[in-house]
């Protein structure tokens, strides 16, 4: 019985070690797969209201909603909404640095 209990403990201990490792790898792999390339054919398939924003973030590479709004002529709040839609669609990513939120196509 004691041998069996020690074997169970060993199995549980090994699982504890591997589980976090597996989830990190999965997360990493998921991140790599999830970012959809924002190529021109994808741009063409986007809804009209998002296309201009998507082209601009491609041009700027990394920018805040205010930077993009300055180029497109939209209001900052509108641009922020559009950029967040593109994030939700997994075409771009978002990163907070202090008070600013940056959007980018590739890091």
């Amino acid at each position, binding site marked *: 019985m004691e041998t069996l209990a020690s074997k169970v403990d060993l199995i549980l201990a090994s699982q504890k070690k591997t589980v976090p490792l597996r989830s990190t790898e999965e997360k990493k792999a998921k991140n790599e797969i999830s970012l959809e*390339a*924002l*190529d*021109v*054919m*994808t*741009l*063409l398939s986007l809804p*009209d209201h998002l*296309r*201009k924003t998507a*082209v601009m973030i*491609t*041009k700027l*590479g990394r920018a805040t909603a205010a930077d993009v709004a300055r180029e497109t002529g939209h209001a900052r709040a509108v641009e922020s909404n559009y950029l967040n839609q593109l994030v939700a669609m997994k075409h771009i990513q978002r990163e907070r640095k202090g008070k600013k939120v940056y959007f980018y*196509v*590739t890091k």
Partner: protein
Amino acid sequence: MGKIVTIHSSRGGTGKSLISANTAAVLANKGKNVCLLDLDFRAPTMHVVFKLSPEYWLNNFLNRECEIENVLYDLTQRYNTKGKFFVGLADPSMLGIREMSMKDRKWEMKALQRLLSLRKLFEEKKIDYIIFDTSPGVQYASVNAVVSSDTVVVVTTMDAIDVQGTRSMIEDLYESFGKKAGILLNKVLLPYSVPSLSPLTEGDRESLSKQLKEMFGIPIFGMIPCYCDVLRTSRTVILAFQNPEHPFTKDIEKFVGVLEET
């Protein structure tokens, strides 16, 4: 601020490359600083027109293997132009063409970013015009060029297939990206075979222009009759340099005038 102009068409054989080279030549002769880039990676032609074999191609620039300055050839002295005249070529080797046709979506996205970055040339090299000679139809290289440009010139003939393809590109491509676009009608058939006997009169041009504008719904930037001697001329001849008085050169000059006002 400079301008990026894409010369595009719905299918091959409309005369894009001939028009691109001569448009760039006319602009340079007028004192503009011009950069002509061959983005037709599937069927490059400019290496034949300019008889160059460079160390770096535009393929290398898009692959991030070099900078645009390494690709550009300065031909200002060769043609004695008033403005600067640069050309950048596409790799015509079978390996180069094959490699470009096998690129994935992620690479194409980065290629678009590289093309968009060319705007720095306006400041850094005081370039006034960048002319993209593209591949026909809706392919990655040509759509990347359209998205990166300020104005799109769509070269078409009166052939029914060309007309249909052009209309679909206007609706599905140029309008989707909100691009300024205009038609350049090429190889307009004249009633007689000798153009000097029957040039397109101003009346002919106006009436044809009105019909075309109704047909396509976008401005008509110009029209060029089908000159038999131009068709017979070697591809290495740039009429705007070698025969400035030829009616073809005059038609290109008219078109350039419209382009400058656009």
